[in-house]
């Protein structure tokens, strides 16, 4: 221990006598290590933001719909492959499904009108449980109730963009009439804003481009207009997000059974979206870490170079130390510690720099200030490893010097 502390002291002494050289040597490690810290933090923030964003759409969410692309050679079938009765059956028989709502949508070129103002909208006909499934919170007013569905009341709940466009976001819209396709609907509620920055496409084949452009009405109205008992797709929630994929399978199996294999069904779960987003973030992190490791390798080569130089310069010192009783292992440890100290100093500076840069990046983008502790520890150990790897060869060379030769060295 005593000798080890002495090694550290000697290491600092020799570093401090050549400050510029030492600093330049550390640069590679500093850049590499700070990149590791930044990558870790940005990755963590990214995952958090994606998670939070998807959380606003319900983490247990799942969608089931008919596959419309018919395989060649098959006879074209009519209908969506999902009926109101199917929804009932799902409620009764799918044990992992918590809530389920039939959905019928009007997605293309629908406009809403209030007095002289128009807004491009998406009409979604849904059931009462939809609000809970989709985490649709209300800014004001109320959501659908059972009677609305049963009596096909001409009421609607509007998204915040629709509210902005039709009512300037100021007027109280409750109980006012808006027109969609020449039919009047009474506004009973306004949905809270839901922003989507990271995941572009949600819902069946990404059919819901902007949740704030929605106008929600009872699904029975659309079914009545289209004179059908079919639903376009199912949106449901599992009891937990880990069950989402299995719940989806239950639904698909049930539907297939009920329709005697007539249709093929597709599905999506929020869980898949989260996993996909995390996979992308992880891939990006790996790419960045690869870049960082190039810098660490350069840093390591720099340290190896400076250690080799140092050992040549200090050949006499090595000879003298051996003459007064240092063993090979003492010399090896001394120079290895010196390499590790250089690398670790670079590492610590790099960690500090990384934290500062992360702070600036995150604060500038108004993200929460998050540091990945795992990556801090990783960065710390990486700098030790770089020190060991780059120091071991020069240290072995120093240790194997012949004391007589070393003392005679000019």
């Amino acid at each position: 221990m005593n000798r080890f502390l002495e090694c550290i002291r000697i290491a600092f002494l020799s570093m401090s006598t050549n400050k510029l050289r030492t600093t330049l040597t550390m640069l590679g490690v500093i850049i590499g290590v700070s990149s590791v810290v930044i990558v870790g933090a940005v990755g963590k923030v990214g995952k958090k933001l994606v998670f939070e964003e998807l959380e606003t759409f319900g983490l247990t969410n799942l969608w089931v719909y008919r596959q419309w692309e018919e395989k060649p050679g098959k006879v074209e079938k009519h209908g969506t492959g999902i009926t109101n009765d199917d929804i009932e059956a799902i409620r009764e028989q799918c044990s992992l499904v918590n809530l389920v709502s039939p959905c019928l949508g009007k997605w293309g070129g629908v406009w809403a009108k209030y007095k002289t103002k128009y807004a491009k909208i998406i009409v979604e006909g849904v059931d009462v449980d939809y609000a809970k499934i989709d985490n649709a919170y209300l800014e004001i007013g109320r959501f659908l109730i059972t009677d609305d569905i049963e009596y096909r009341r001409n009421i609607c709940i509007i998204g915040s963009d629709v509210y902005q466009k039709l009512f300037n976001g100021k007027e109280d819209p409750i109980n006012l009439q808006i027109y969609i396709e020449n039919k009047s609907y009474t506004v009973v509620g306004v949905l809270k804003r839901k922003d989507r920055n990271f995941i572009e496409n949600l819902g069946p084949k990404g059919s819901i481009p902007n949740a704030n452009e929605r106008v929600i009405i009872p699904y029975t109205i659309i079914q009545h207009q289209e004179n059908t008992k079919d639903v376009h797709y199912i949106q449901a929630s599992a009891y937990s997000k880990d069950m989402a994929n299995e719940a989806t399978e239950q639904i698909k199996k049930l539907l297939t059974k009920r329709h005697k294999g007539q249709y093929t069904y597709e599905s999506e779960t929020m869980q898949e979206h989260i996993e996909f987003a995390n996979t992308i973030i992880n891939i990006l992190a790996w790419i960045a870490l690869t870049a960082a490791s190039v810098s660490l390798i350069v840093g390591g080569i720099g340290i190896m170079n400076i250690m080799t130089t140092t050992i040549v310069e200090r050949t006499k010192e090595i000879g003298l130390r051996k003459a007064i009783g240092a063993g090979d292992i003492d010399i090896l440890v001394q120079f290895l510690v010196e390499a590790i100290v250089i690398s670790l100093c670079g590492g610590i500076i790099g960690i500090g720099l990384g934290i500062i840069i992360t702070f600036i990046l995150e604060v500038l983008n108004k993200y929460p200030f998050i540091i990945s502790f795992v990556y801090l520890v990783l960065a710390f150990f990486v700098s030790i490893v770089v020190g060991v790897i780059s120091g071991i060869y020069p240290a072995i060379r120093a240790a194997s010097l012949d004391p007589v030769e070393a003392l005679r060295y000019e």
Partner: protein
Amino acid sequence: MKPIIEIQGIHKIYSLGETRIHALSGVSLSIKRGAFISIMGPSGSGKSTLMNIIGCLTTPNSGTYLLEGENISQLPYSALPYIRNKKIGFIFQQFHLLPKLSAICNVKLPLIYAGYKFRERHLLAYEALASVGLKDRISHLPNQLSGGEQQRVAIARALVNQPVIILADEPTGNLDSNTGKEIMGIFKLLNQQGKTIILVTHEESWTAYTSRIIKLKDGKVVEDE
């Protein structure tokens, strides 16, 4: 009394490519405890090589070497640093002080490898420096000291771990004659206190301090009185 050093038929050969240099060819010596010996001889006669073998810095190609009855030639390579640390005190012509360390830190070096604690190291190093008259120079760097003072620091470093034998290879070679005399005075005192000293020198006048002169030529002992 058993001799402290017993050397029998030692050969040391250096191979430089094709040519083989017989640095020592059959040297036998016996040195008593408490002796003060000077080794003389022309340049290249093998004096330093002999000192390095006695100091366990290198091993002979053949022959036996007993130090305090211990057969050094049979020890593994890994045991030699311990012998050098505990039993040998080296003093060189070029002092070989570490330039970035203060006088006292230089003197402490052998104690680090001997495993002493910080306090003991400081105390012992201070005493050693005091014994060569450098009490008030302990925190000077080598380049802040005169040649004679530097060599005295080196002597303190050689003494600090209580070696059984002091090996001084031309210790006054880089010093003027007055400073040389001072250094020789220190050696004389140490010898009177019972230290065994082997001194390599070119200076005829220093032999007056010593009890025995061994003359080497072409790797052989040619005179021993």
